């Protein structure tokens, strides 16, 4: 996802002279293509995320669309108030980009595990979350954000994610994006709804287990407070929904969906949340190991 991000950002920056990239002294072997091609629009704030976010807001107030870039929690929690007050409240076009969403930096430990970021960002009015499921969705999210500049949070995986979508996939906030239809029909309408890099896990589960043959698969790469009203109608199409996220359940994606239904007084289908248990916090291992031990698996919970 990292390379798709920087490649698409370079393409967009050619057409849009107001796109700028500001890194918090991270991005070695990722951000160089942008820095080399657009040196006037590339900034390294140093290891100083509060200033990075505040400066990005200031630049955005003067016509730039600034992408701040760092890993895991550094561009979000470390400067949460700058995002809340300076960026979101002032409705400025700054996209906070975090690479290593979820447990992608598995062995690096809790400091590098981004498993509470949705909770932080989704409670801010005006904030759009972009959590693409594959490299094509990364590019589509970027195109959407550049066409619709606003406070936003782009949560990337890391590297090596497979591509499921076609290159011209188009997105809209709050709109579930179908990938696979249900292959069996026993009269119960079932869906799997993923956000972020967990799309790969859902695709794998559907391929490997008959238990999910009756589920239609969707991803939701663009969502936030403002897209809650669009959820009830989409949920009403299903009797059972499995939500999938590499995030703690607390304040996460499944909670968001339930809040959206409650806010409208809508009927709530049977919802199962595949998400991370707090017990994963502090554990070390590969992303796959941690996802499994944190309960983010289709296997152990059965169907």
């Amino acid at each position: 996802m990292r390379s798709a991000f920087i490649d698409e950002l370079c393409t967009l920056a050619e057409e849009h002279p107001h796109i700028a990239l500001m890194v918090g002294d991270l991005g070695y072997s990722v951000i160089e293509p942008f820095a080399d091609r657009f040196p006037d629009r590339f900034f390294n704030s140093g290891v100083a995320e509060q200033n990075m976010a505040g400066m990005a807001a200031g630049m955005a107030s003067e016509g730039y669309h600034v992408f701040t870039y760092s890993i895991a929690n550094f561009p979000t929690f470390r400067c949460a108030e700058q995002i809340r007050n300076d960026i979101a409240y002032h409705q400025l076009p700054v996209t906070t980009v975090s690479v290593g969403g979820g447990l992608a930096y598995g062995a690096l430990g809790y400091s590098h595990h981004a498993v509470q970021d949705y909770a932080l960002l989704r409670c801010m009015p005006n904030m759009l979350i972009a959590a693409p499921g594959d490299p094509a969705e990364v590019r589509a999210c970027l195109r959407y954000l550049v066409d619709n500049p606003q406070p936003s949070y782009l949560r990337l995986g890391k590297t090596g994610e497979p591509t499921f979508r076609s290159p011209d996939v188009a997105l809209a906030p709050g709109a579930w994006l179908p990938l696979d239809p249900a292959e069996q029909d026993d009269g119960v309408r079932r869906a799997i709804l993923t956000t972020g890099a967990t799309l790969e896990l859902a695709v794998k589960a559907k391929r490997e287990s008959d238990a999910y043959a009756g589920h239609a698969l969707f991803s939701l790469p663009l969502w936030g407070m403002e897209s809650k009203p669009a959820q009830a109608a989409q949920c009403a199409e299903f009797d059972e929904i499995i939500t999938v996220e590499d995030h703690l359940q607390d304040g996460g994606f499944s909670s968001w969906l339930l809040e959206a239904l409650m806010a409208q007084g809508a009927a709530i289908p049977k919802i199962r949340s595949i998400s991370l248990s707090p017990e994963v916090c502090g554990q070390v291992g590969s992303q796959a190991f941690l996802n499994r031990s944190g309960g983010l698996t289709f296997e152990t919970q059965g169907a």
Partner: protein
Amino acid sequence: MTKVEEIETLGTLNLSSVDLARKIRLDTLAMVHAAKASHVGSGMSITDILAVLYANTLRYRPEDPKHPARDRFIVSKGHAAAAVYACLANVGVLSQDDLATFGQQGSRLMTHVNHKVRGVELSTGSLGHGLPFGVGKALAGKRQGKDWRVYVLLSDGEMDEGSNWEALMFAAHARLDNLVAVIDYNKLQSLASTESTLGLEPLVDKLAAFNWNVIEVDGHDHDELRRAFYQANENKGRPTLILAHTVKGKGVSFMENSVAWHYKSPNDAELALAVREIEGNHA
């Protein structure tokens, strides 16, 4: 540098900085009294800085406060909002009717500066936000070859915030000589003196070591302030920091140098006394 459209500045205001300062103080007192609001001492502390900025320094157009060629002025110590709004009203950006809504139900004039109010660039209130934002503006102005300048007004207590020191480092590193920061150094913060809370001294040496062009002034002396802003404009290659020595509550004897007036709002009798002092001082 790109030549920007001329913007009317000096001479448009039919008011001296001294008269403007007096009006700001009187309006501030009336506003905090009516709203039973805090922070009157902070407002009095920055009044002369505001007056010199708006009477003699900033390029702005009152009827078009978002004019693209304006100088950008960011109030980082958002709690001094009453004085800022009072200033904006007396230079024609806001009206006296606007001031009457200060701190009232449903008003845009909340008691920390609000960007939804005409003439306000950034909502603040949480400290340590204005300078990073101003650095971003100055950086944008440099990259775009703009002629306008960025001014940021900070409190001394807010220099406790690490974000300010991050921004100080970056601004010097990026050689932002289109940026002027002013510290309102009244030496009192929320509970006690700045030195007994979290010592700032030797502040001039620290700021100079951060490679800023540091100018120390009496923050109530309009000539010194004017000279400092002029020197800041002449300075090349470094951002300028004006360390303005001030008195919290300046102009009202019983408010001066008193932490209590960070919180208290004058009652009717105190308001009458304060108004008499301000009018007397300027008679």
